């Protein structure tokens, strides 16, 4: 039996504008409740919205980044529903005329790249927040009310939980690149709803779409899709079908539970928002936004391959996050050696990031301090192995490379006279190995080098020592 899973995502992203979307309250997170509100975002009688230019600019940037067609006229709508966190009984949103239409995002699968098409990106305002207390009350804070959002709606082009994860990661990364949101799921600046159904391709039947709301991590998205996929298939196999309904994901059990039957989207009574005159955007302004767009992940990857002569794989890892790519480029500019920089970032730095499940910004390491360490390697003052140890200590103690190297006397011995004395001793003590080497056992050389390192506490310049050793064995 062959089933195909169809997933469409609706993603809300809070824009990091200076002000809220329709008033001049600051757009900030974490103020005391109801201290960052005004007549407009509180929905007081008589207050009127006026559109924020930066919010529109950021939405257009998203549209450009996701290859959308940008509509040059802004017409807003009222989306009506009653809810305590909604101040006006309607949300100012866009229905018939989304700011950005179409578009796509490419994800990289083992089989190659796949295009996930977008339906639209529109702009709308955020709501306030509810807190349900233990003693039977609900408290309302409207500081978030009126924060600008974009809603990104995909077509049902996603066919697995893994594809959804890859898509979300790429989307998050791209948004970070263009700097329009901090996309923190834990703070709610990125929120994702999943629409899912499955198709029984043999029988040609489909399950009804479930909508899963309130997913607050990529992991939850993955688990919810996996759970729903099975639930839908199981129902189809038993000759039943799913109901068209909205469900909630329970993180503790990993299951989805029914929230409400039918979509309440049934009647939002969309209406043209006459408080906001339509705004025709000038072509010049849109072009200006286009021409000042920050580099996007795919563009950067391409440039890295060409400019730094690194592999496609390395380039895609290094451009996975904006911060990492910046870190890498800064490192290259400081040590003027892209191969060395790529190697170190890809191995030691990435390993550390993975171990600690951190982003580069949170790691105790700046590009400058790593560059200082790598310049010791480049100039031959310490060797690679020593450098790895130093890096570990740097990360643990937050001390500089030079401090650690000097304190421990780690500058490698490159002085030939000094090395010769030590190598003479090693040769004297290991005649058998010399014979083995001469008889073609290459491994013996490694053993001898090891002995040299042992005597020098790892400080011998490996290239110089190697050369002297071979010269000596060959009888010079």
């Amino acid at each position, binding site marked *: 039996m062959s089933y195909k899973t169809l997933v469409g995502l609706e993603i809300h992203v809070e824009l990091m504008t200076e002000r809220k979307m329709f008033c001049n309250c600051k757009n900030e997170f974490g103020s005391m409740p109801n201290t960052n509100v005004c*007549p407009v975002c509180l*929905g007081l*009688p*008589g207050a*009127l919205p*006026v559109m924020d230019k930066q919010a529109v600019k950021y939405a257009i940037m998203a549209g450009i980044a996701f290859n959308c067609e940008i509509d040059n006229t802004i017409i807003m709508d009222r989306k009506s529903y009653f809810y305590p966190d909604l*101040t006006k*009984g309607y949300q100012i949103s866009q229905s018939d005329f989304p700011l950005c239409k179409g578009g796509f995002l490419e994800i990289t699968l083992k089989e190659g790249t796949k295009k996930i098409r977008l339906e639209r990106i529109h702009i709308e305002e955020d709501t306030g927040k509810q807190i349900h207390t233990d003693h039977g009350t609900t408290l*309302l804070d409207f500081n978030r009310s009126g924060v600008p959002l974009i809603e990104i709606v995909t077509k049902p082009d996603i066919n697995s939980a893994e594809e959804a994860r890859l898509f979300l990661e790429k989307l998050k990364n791209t948004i970070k690149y263009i700097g329009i949101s901090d996309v923190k799921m834990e703070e709610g600046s990125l929120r994702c709803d999943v629409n899912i159904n499955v198709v029984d391709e043999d029988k040609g039947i489909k399950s009804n779409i479930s909508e899963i709301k309130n997913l607050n991590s990529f992991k939850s998205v993955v688990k919810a899709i996996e759970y729903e996929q099975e639930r839908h298939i199981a129902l189809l196999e038993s000759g039943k079908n799913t109901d068209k309904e909205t469900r909630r994901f329970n993180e503790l059990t990993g299951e989805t539970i029914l929230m409400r039957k039918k979509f309440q989207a049934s009647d939002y009574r969309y209406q043209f928002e006459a408080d906001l005159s339509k705004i025709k955007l000038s072509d010049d302004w849109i072009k200006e936004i286009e021409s000042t767009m920050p580099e996007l992940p795919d563009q950067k990857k391409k440039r890295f391959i060409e400019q730094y002569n690194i592999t496609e794989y390395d380039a895609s890892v290094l451009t996975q996050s904006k911060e990492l790519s910046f870190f890498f480029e800064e490192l290259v500019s400081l040590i003027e050696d892209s191969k060395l920089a790529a190697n170190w970032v890809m191995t030691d730095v990435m390993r550390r990031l993975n171990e600690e499940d951190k982003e580069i910004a949170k790691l105790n390491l700046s590009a400058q301090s790593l560059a200082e360490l790598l310049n010791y390697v480049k100039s031959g003052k310490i060797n690679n192995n020593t450098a790895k140890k130093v890096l570990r200590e740097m990360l643990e103690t937050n001390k500089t490379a030079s401090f650690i190297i000097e304190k421990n006397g780690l500058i490698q011995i490159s002085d030939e006279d000094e090395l010769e004395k030590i190598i003479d001793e090693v040769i004297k003590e290991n005649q058998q190995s010399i014979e083995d080497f001469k008889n073609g056992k290459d491994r013996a050389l490694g053993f001898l080098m090891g002995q040299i390192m042992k005597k020098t506490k790892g400080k011998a310049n490996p290239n110089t020592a190697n050369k002297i050793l071979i010269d000596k064995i060959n009888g010079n």
Partner: protein
Amino acid sequence: MDITNLKSWELRDKILNKEISSYEVTEAFLEKIDEVEDEINAFITIDADRALEKAKQFDQKLMEGEEIGILAGLPIAIKDNIMTRNLRTTCASKMLEKYIPPYNATVVEKITREDGIILGKTNMDEFAMGGSTETSYFGPTRNPKNKSFVPGGSSGGSAAAIAAQESALSLGTDTGGSIRQPASYCGVVGIKPTYGLVSRYGVVPMSNSLDQVGVFGKDVKDAYIALKSIVGYDPLDATSSKKAKLEDIKFEEISLKGLKIALPKEYDELRVEGDQEIREVFKKSLKVFEDNGATIEYVSLPYLKYALETYYLISTAEVSTNLSRFDGIRYGHRALDYNTLDELYINSRTEGFGEETKRRIMMGTYALSQGYKDEHYKKALKLRTLIKNDYDRVFRNFDIILSITSPILPFPFDSVINSPVDMYKADTYTVPVNLAGLCAMSVPMGEVDGLPVGLQITANRFEEKKLFTAAYGFERSAK
């Protein structure tokens, strides 16, 4: 001598000449309020102490030779759907019975800056829905010309306050005739300015694509002073116009000679019972224009026939969403009794809103609901375009359009209100102006059975100067 019967421009001159103080003027109007308010009920809230205090401050300012705003210490009454900081603003609804706004409407800021003295908040139909000021939670306003008749509405309190000499000037709002019709019924001048000329910030919307703040005065020059004080672009109102300005007008130089007047044929076809005598007065008024050198021609605006229906669909659709914010949570009436969220909403709203308000919310909800939206709301938006196009065509060749303001006389209490459709039909002449965003004015043109009737002058967008020219020319010659 009773100074409350003087025109505002006369009072203004006397204040500026220091013949009389703003304090004395304010006191005189407050005394008049004391005297007649029990009967008229033009006000919901009277702010006497603060008004006197402000008047005193103004007189001090005048004494010290500071620059003086256009309102020059004149008392002004504000319709109660316009936000006044720290002064109760109710929209004549139980919903907002105790509402104290934390901010001022832009027009209130302007009035303060122009040295107007705010006397209080005037009565109106609840949330500006109605044409008689009978739907007010605070009881109806009576027509000062004959107290067993309605003053018109929804700005009935503001019109009556002028007619009863309770205030020198007043502000109203006009969505489909809510300034012009009460002006007609009370025998005063009322202006509905071009959509976008006056800021709507802080004005509780009834139908936000149609609403406009306007003014009342005893005569045309009074209305001019009042309007001049509130016009202007407002960055807080995205529908306000950057062109919003009212030119200076030299009234003594005004002439009707060469004024090109259009009369829509469709108005003649729209007969409402009992309007014959009003039409007679209208004919006499036309003669005044002709005698003074204006030319009059019939024109056709074919889509005017659908203006009322279009108006009621658009306005109720907007009403339904504009009034959604009244949910009892952040402000306004909250039901004591509720166990679920739905009950909180339903009980609060059902208790807080009056019948007419609920009817229009229902109508608008219906017009916007799925399955009906295209044949109702969308269709109405298209008809609005057609109606606007009709006017655009007429104003390419004409300066103004003349009509009667209301096809019916002020009516006795509890008479028409039971038939909503008849009540709507009374708005035949006023409603299209709002649909096309034009400016219009009602000036007294005579009486029928001892009740005043108004002449409606309509001009193209931002052509308020033409309104004043026609209105003043008529007012002067009709005397």
